[in-house]
């Protein structure tokens, strides 16, 4: 590259922040701090999504990951425990071996993956670009992501709505919407 691309600098700094926050989450024992850092991680991911031209995804990740998910985890943390027990050495080393083996296997596979940003990679060349060229003819909606989500792949979105409904049902069955106020009262 002859000229330095300043947006790449933004990408690198976001990646570095993600790595730092990820390692901090793993090392922290205070659950409140871990949950807060999870919200920060989601927000930094949302910023990186914008840099990667995925604006719909960034919107959803910021709203859902940094918003609702943080509220949920805080509420659960308040109802359960405030600190995690320290990790025993045996378990720590076993986990590290598992993670290293998995990571090594994934690194071995990196050689076969497409080049970052390649417009002719198999992921980008066929169906994805077809959606962009045929959306103006068949759907006439400027936001291609909404057109694909609601029209071309409307069936999948229907299934997703049912999954969200089922999860809401699950939580209602497990916890109940009008739970007991004090310990000792019967359900």
């Amino acid at each position, binding site marked *: 590259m002859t000229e330095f691309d300043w947006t790449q600098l933004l990408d690198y700094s976001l990646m570095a922040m993600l790595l730092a926050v990820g390692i901090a989450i793993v090392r922290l024992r205070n659950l409140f701090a871990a949950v807060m850092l999870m919200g920060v991680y989601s927000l930094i991911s949302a910023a990186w999504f914008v840099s990667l031209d995925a*604006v*719909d995804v*960034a*919107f*959803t990740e910021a*709203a*859902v990951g940094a*918003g*609702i998910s943080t*509220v*949920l985890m805080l*509420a*659960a943390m*308040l*109802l359960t425990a*405030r600190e995690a027990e320290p990790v025993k050495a045996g378990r720590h080393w076993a986990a590290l071996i598992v993670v290293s083996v998995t990571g090594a296997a994934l690194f071995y596979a990196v050689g076969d993956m497409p080049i970052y940003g390649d417009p002719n990679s198999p992921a980008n060349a066929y169906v994805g670009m077809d959606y962009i060229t045929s959306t103006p003819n*068949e*759907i*006439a*909606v*400027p*936001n291609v*992501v*909404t*057109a694909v*989500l*609601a*029209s071309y792949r*409307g*069936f999948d*979105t*229907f299934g997703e*709505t*049912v999954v*969200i*409904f089922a*999860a*809401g*049902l699950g*939580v*209602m069955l*497990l*916890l*109940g*919407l*009008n*739970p*007991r*106020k*004090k*310990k000792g009262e019967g359900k």
Partner: protein
Amino acid sequence: MNPHLVLRVVSKLLIPLIVVFGLYVHFHGDYSPGGGFQAGVIVAAAVILYALIFGVDAAKRAVPTWFVKFLAAFGVLLYGGTGVATLVLGANFLDYDVLHPDLAHHSGQHIGIILVELGVLSTVFSVMMAIFYAFAGRAPDIPEGEW
């Protein structure tokens, strides 16, 4: 003076704006980033903000639990109902072109997309509210001093 006076006044100004913004995101999902999921979460965030400042009981009076339960099922029904409506009008399931006779500008697609995204908005909003009510309404087992 109420120590939360600033919070109460500012939130009373902000919560209607947040709801309007959520509806804007939903209706402009065709033209800009947005759609049903983001809009549902934004409207849920407005009600959660109300619950955080005025109390869960006040929020349960504003958005009652029976309404939340109804809306969750209604969203899925609206989505499926749009598909059945297109079936009844003669086309495939969820083929939106038949919803409006103007085929040159594909107005049927706009109508169909707004309807199904409304279903998604309803379900996402009510499920987020149901989850919040389930967690926030529960008193912790452990008294404050024993953490």
